[in-house]
């Protein structure tokens, strides 16, 4: 089972990338009560029959791994959501794409930690393949809000090939600086005019 909420996001985002999508849109939106994630792709989508089966841990389409008889990404997520009375939705149309959303109440005693968001965004952006990805990250607190958006093609145009460790180090530094600003907002170390 995954250790953090970001691990679930990595899993679902990888499904989107591997669905043949040319565009994957990810949102990570947090307030003082909950954190919500959405992953939307324009990949191959699912038929109604497949959509009903993907919640079964003993179902896989067998394309990625010929001898594999389990598919655990979505079942893991649903189990975790149900354990903390969160929310999960899956909407998909064959040939059009898929949208997965999930929300976790942060103050539930069994809610896993959010995890390392910059590292998760880095791993989503640098997964192999020719796809566009837009990641929108928002922190919405009662007195102030902030956020950032990362576009894969824009980062690649600035930094170069994502397979180079030097590029990934720069991307890591950039993402950490964005998230650090949100941490400052969360801890109240930055004064923001009301």
């Amino acid at each position: 089972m995954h250790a953090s909420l970001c691990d679930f996001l990595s899993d679902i985002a990888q499904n989107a990338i591997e669905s043949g999508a040319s565009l994957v849109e990810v949102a990570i939106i947090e307030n003082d009560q909950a954190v919500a994630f959405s992953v939307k792709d324009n990949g191959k989508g699912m038929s109604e029959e497949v959509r009903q089966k993907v919640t079964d841990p003993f179902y896989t389409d067998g394309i990625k791994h010929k001898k594999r008889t389990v598919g655990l990404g979505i079942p893991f997520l649903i189990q975790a959501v149900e354990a903390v009375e969160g929310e999960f939705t899956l909407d998909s149309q064959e040939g059009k794409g898929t949208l997965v959303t999930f929300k976790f109440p942060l103050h539930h005693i069994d809610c896993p930690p959010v995890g390392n968001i910059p590292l998760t965004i880095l791993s989503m952006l640098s997964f192999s393949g020719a796809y566009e990805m837009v990641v929108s990250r928002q922190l919405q607190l009662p007195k102030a809000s902030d956020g950032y958006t990362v576009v894969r093609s824009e980062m690649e145009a600035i930094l170069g090939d994502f397979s180079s460790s030097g590029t990934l180090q720069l991307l890591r530094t950039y993402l950490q600086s964005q998230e650090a600003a949100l941490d400052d907002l969360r801890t109240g170390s930055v004064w923001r005019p009301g």
Partner: protein
Amino acid sequence: MIYEPALFGDPDEEAGMAKMTLEELRKLRDSKKFAIKKRDIEGKDTQIIVGMGTCGIAAGAKVVLDAFLQELDAQQLENVSVTQSGCMGLCYVEPTVEVIAPDMPPVIYGKVDAAVAKTIIRDHIMHKKMVSDHVFDRPSVDIIKDGGK
């Protein structure tokens, strides 16, 4: 039709936090490029592939990926190829990492954590010596016994 739920309503557009801008990122990239040009680094043909399937993620593959990036940075190796793959089929020893380096046989390491990742950089990539305790696939046993030499 795919609907888009309003997760928490409209996000606040307010900006102004002191965080790195794209222009600052460009400048940082340019300064690093200059440093790379000055240093004829070894390891241009080296590849590190981190297994990032469900099993890998659950076992801590992202922490391993981060450890590789940190150690490569610490050792000033900036041109190693670091990529991700899905499950490599060795779910029982996740996180798994394949390392392909010049003058070394390709290796799949298993049960890799942050400390092992650092050892792989220093021993396997920098000193051409396999980390035998964590070899789980690829080279034959006689190669492993000899420490990869």
